């Protein structure tokens, strides 16, 4: 637990510190103020979101380009459908089995939902118990492979092992 805590402080300090640096950058006085502001933000972050899962930064970094590419494809895909004379739409709900997403902790599931909402064709509407509710623009699309893959990647980023059975939380 202690190692987890130290890692969380380091990670969040790095991320929030980067944000502060971006905001105040060339000014030395502003950067110095960050010595107060960033620890305060890290403390707030740890209080609101206690460190329960390790964040594996290199996996996050590997995931980012895929996420960006996916959201670009998502935007292009929906724009194509909107401008097409005969809108190729077959909207509906798909059933995502609890297996890929059910074991994820709440925050990671929200992140998965947010990410799916920016990916081509899918939109999350929260969960119903263990089942993720996903709306798709085209029911003919193939999502039975892509959604579990996203879930696995998110699980990997927080070092969440799927083989360890967990309750519905």
């Amino acid at each position, binding site marked *: 637990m202690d190692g987890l805590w130290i890692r969380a402080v380091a990670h*969040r300090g790095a991320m*929030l510190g980067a*944000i*502060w640096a971006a*905001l*105040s950058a060339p000014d030395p006085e*502003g950067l110095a*103020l960050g010595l107060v*502001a*960033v620890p*305060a*933000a*890290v403390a*707030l*972050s740890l209080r*609101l*979101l206690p460190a329960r899962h390790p964040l594996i930064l290199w996996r996050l970094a590997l995931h980012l380009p895929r996420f960006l590419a996916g959201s670009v494809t998502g935007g292009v895909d929906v724009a194509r459908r909107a401008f097409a004379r005969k809108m190729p739409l077959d909207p509906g709900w798909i059933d995502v089995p609890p297996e890929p997403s059910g074991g994820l*902790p*709440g*925050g990671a*599931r*929200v*992140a998965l*939902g*947010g990410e799916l909402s920016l990916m081509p064709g899918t939109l999350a509407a*929260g*969960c119903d118990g263990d089942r993720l509710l996903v709306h798709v623009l085209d029911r003919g699309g193939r999502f039975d492979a892509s959604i579990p893959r996203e879930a696995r990647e998110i699980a990997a980023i927080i070092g969440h092992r799927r083989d360890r059975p967990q309750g519905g*939380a």
Partner: protein
Amino acid sequence: MTAALGLALDAALCALILGVALAVVAGRGVFRAVVFFIVYGLLAAVAWVRLDAVNVALAEAAIGAGLTGVLLLAAHGRLRRAEAAQDLAHGMPWSAALAGGALAAALGWAWFEMPIPVEPGPELAEALPRAGVGNPVTAVLLNFRAWDTLLESIVLLAALIGVWMLAREGDWREPLGRPQHARPGGVMAGFGRVLPPVGLLVGVWLVWAGADHPGGAFQGGTVLAAVGLVAVLAGVIRPPWIGAPLWQGALVLGPAVFLLAGIAGAVLAGGFLTLPEGFAKPAIVTIEVALTVSIAVTLAFLVLGPPEAEGAG
């Protein structure tokens, strides 16, 4: 070419603003009016940027569109059951239209009759180097016209006390506002746990940047208030009750420090609220930090509303 383009942009923006404002006053349904008012606030912020008033644009976006929007949406959610059979008058209220038109016409006439100032206060440009801060709007708020700002911080407190007076006797010791029920592990709870640290940094930065760039205690304080509101709405923190001593201290910190600085000025310098030249910068920073704390807490409490027990209508 560029001037003509700018003029076209201004005209289009103003047309958009007026169209949205028309939807606010004449559209059917209270919810629609509130949503269009939020859109209106964002467009007005763009208009302020066009008028070279970035400080005002920040305040308008954060307060006019942001906090006022939260306040009105929350109120609409509460009053939904009591929504009147008709929210607008029957037919066209010609007398109201006449009155509004006359008012607008009078203001329009006054605009063209008003004398044009040759130069905006030459005294100000002269005094600015001695003000202690580089952002002229901050200099006016906290140094040259500090009197207005001090009284305003007290007006905010008076409004908050007015809101609290509307609490029912039995609810006095309840947490402020209505009880929130965000699902644990849900979207709002997740969002409310991630966003506040980032918002804290942005708020602090706005206050700090306000010394020399657009920003300041009001804009930064509003962002900090919004951070608190997000956390409360997400159910990750519980608002305090009215009597919590720490929070009461935060409410009066700004006016108290301001007042003390004013008295110190009366003793040490030329008069009440006169900042001695050498100390202007540290004095303004101290006042601004204290004022930010109070503004943030007061605005958040104002938007939360009076305390209310579970299940009260």
